[in-house]
């Protein structure tokens, strides 16, 4: 019980400090903090159109973060998540461009392709780790770059716009391959997928044997092995699931938001997803609200650049500061707890 209060306390301290820091930055840049926060609020949930923007940004972030909950549970640092998002986008783009059929079919296949693309890319990083002993951090990083390289190559090479090879993207996909929307931007399918993903992961981790066993492998591979679990199988499956969900996020980005392939197709949602999961304490329960909060900040801070001439990266600053402070304050509290109870050591 005490631990729960302590956790809530540390989160509050972190939030307050982050807000203070941001306010200071704003003042130093000659802007009013109150005005800025108001603009961010209005710019993200102020009206229906803005809300749609925020929600559409929220979807890939939630998808990537849900996948990351699974990989973190397995004890893995899936830095390759960015690449998995990109590969999902590429796969969906491929389907959108090359195949012609009824919209329902194309969209389903494109989304499925996204899952598969991300899944395979995640599995690749997993295999490098399990069979090649290549740390998933650096293996994943390398694969991130390879994926980005591939998308750039496609955009200015084989998939380039007729006549102009530019990094602004490919031709837009045929209309059948666009996710249907309410209004201009909001795709209910996308939102439903995100909700299903985060609820699914929550249930998977808390209610199934797979989740329990994965937790065991991530917490103590040696004991898990003695108990009878195959660590290899669980690590690889986790990477596949993480990659698959990230890939789905990429697919949604491609056919639900951008409607074409651009070099920055991942939107940074992979890495941002890591921040979300860090803030959520590695658990699925808080992913959805935290991701929404993050996207409010991201989408809202574009208003800052429009109205106040400030750089919209302030949003990223707020997000990063919040996570950093939460991590540090949490570590400081753990340190104090350790000081109070000396650890037992066998002589």
């Amino acid at each position, binding site marked *: 019980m005490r631990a729960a209060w302590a956790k809530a306390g540390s989160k509050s301290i972190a939030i307050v400090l982050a807000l203070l820091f941001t306010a200071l930055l704003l003042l130093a840049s000659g802007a009013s903090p109150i005005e800025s926060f108001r603009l961010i609020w209005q710019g993200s949930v102020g009206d229906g159109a803005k809300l749609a923007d925020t929600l559409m940004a929220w979807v890939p972030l939630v998808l990537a973060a849900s996948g990351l909950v699974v990989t973190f549970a397995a004890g893995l640092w899936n830095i390759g998540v960015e690449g998995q998002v990109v590969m999902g986008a590429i796969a969906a783009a491929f389907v959108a461009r090359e195949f012609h059929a009824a919209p329902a079919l194309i969209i389903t296949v494109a989304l499925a392709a996204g899952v598969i693309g991300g899944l395979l890319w995640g599995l690749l990083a997993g295999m490098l780790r399990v069979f*090649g002993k290549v740390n998933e951090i*650096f293996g994943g990083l390398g694969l991130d770059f390879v994926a980005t390289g591939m998308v750039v190559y496609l955009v200015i090479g084989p998939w380039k716009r007729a006549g102009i090879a530019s990094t602004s993207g490919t031709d837009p996909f045929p209309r059948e391959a666009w996710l249907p929307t309410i209004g201009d931007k909001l795709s209910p399918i996308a939102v439903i997928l995100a909700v299903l993903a985060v609820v699914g992961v929550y249930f998977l981790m808390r209610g199934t044997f797979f989740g329990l066993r994965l937790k065991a492998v991530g917490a103590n591979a040696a004991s898990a092995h003695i108990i009878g679990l195959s660590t290899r199988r669980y690590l690889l499956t986790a990477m596949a699931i993480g990659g698959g969900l990230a890939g789905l996020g990429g697919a949604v980005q491609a056919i639900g938001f951008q409607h074409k392939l651009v070099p920055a197709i991942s939107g940074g949602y992979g890495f941002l997803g890591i921040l979300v999961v860090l803030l959520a304490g590695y658990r699925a329960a808080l992913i959805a609200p935290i991701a929404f909060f993050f996207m409010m900040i991201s989408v809202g801070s574009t208003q800052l650049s429009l109205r106040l001439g400030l750089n919209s990266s302030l949003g*990223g600053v707020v997000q990063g500061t919040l996570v950093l402070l939460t991590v540090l304050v949490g570590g400081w509290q753990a340190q104090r707890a350790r000081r109070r109870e000396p650890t037992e050591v066998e002589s």
Partner: protein
Amino acid sequence: MDSTLATIVAAAAPLIYATMGETIAEKAGVINLSLDGSIMLSAMAGFSITYVTGSVIVGFLAATAVSAIIAALIAFASIELKLNQIAVGFVLTLLAAKLSSFLGTAYVGVKGTHVPHLAIPLLEDIPFFGTVLFDHNLSVYGSFVVLIGVYLFLYRTRRGLELQGIGERPEAAFARGIPVNKLRYLYTVIGGALVGLAGAAYSLDVKFGWRENLTLNFGWIALAIVIFGGWHPMRVAFGCYLFGALQVVALKLQPVEALQGVSQILPIMPFVLMIFTLLIVYLDWFKRFGDRHPAWRGLLTSDPPAGIGKVFERE
């Protein structure tokens, strides 16, 4: 030919600073994953401070300070608070990058000072080597000094040997009376300072100015090169110059339509090489060759310092 080589040397100078800094930190056992963000923020700081004060030297100092502080934060979080170095480094890299974008808005596109050219008299007249090595500026010469300095320090001094010890097996170093954690702080911060020099070298020399995401991905590339270089300064430097060469080649290829795609693939190379290196560790052959030829051993090992990334606790 020699002017191309000279361009490569100059282009690689910032990477030399960054990789040497990271090599020191990782040799001491601390992974500073914030490289990409640190370089970016230092680049912005260096440029803006130079613009404001008019002094390139002060700008370089400011850049150094910025990265050193970030590194100190990582060291503190890891050593004092026992937090995961990867987690803290990762958050810092994103945060520092965003900070650089935000704080640097006023300086985008501004024409600032840059490091003045300084050909070394006499030496610059040596045929071939003169142009390649001695017709640059202080920033590039600095990279030579740092490279040789780090190599000599690590492999020719006893403090350097101790540094290797604390990263390799901190318990053994501690048993020999070496203050492991204190030194880890020191070397992480020194490494961070060198990383700061990289940032300044970009904004005040190689790229002449500041814009958003100026040094994008160079930090990640530096991390990959350190691994590819097996944590040995000479091999790491080779990786830097190799990458510099790839960059120059990519630039030359740009106008060629047919090879457009190839030039985009080049930034991937360090990572492919890095993964390759990590896989090769498996192969015993290199190790056995190194065992028999001590002079080559340093260059052939690809094992990370065994104690890297782990928290050292007394009991």
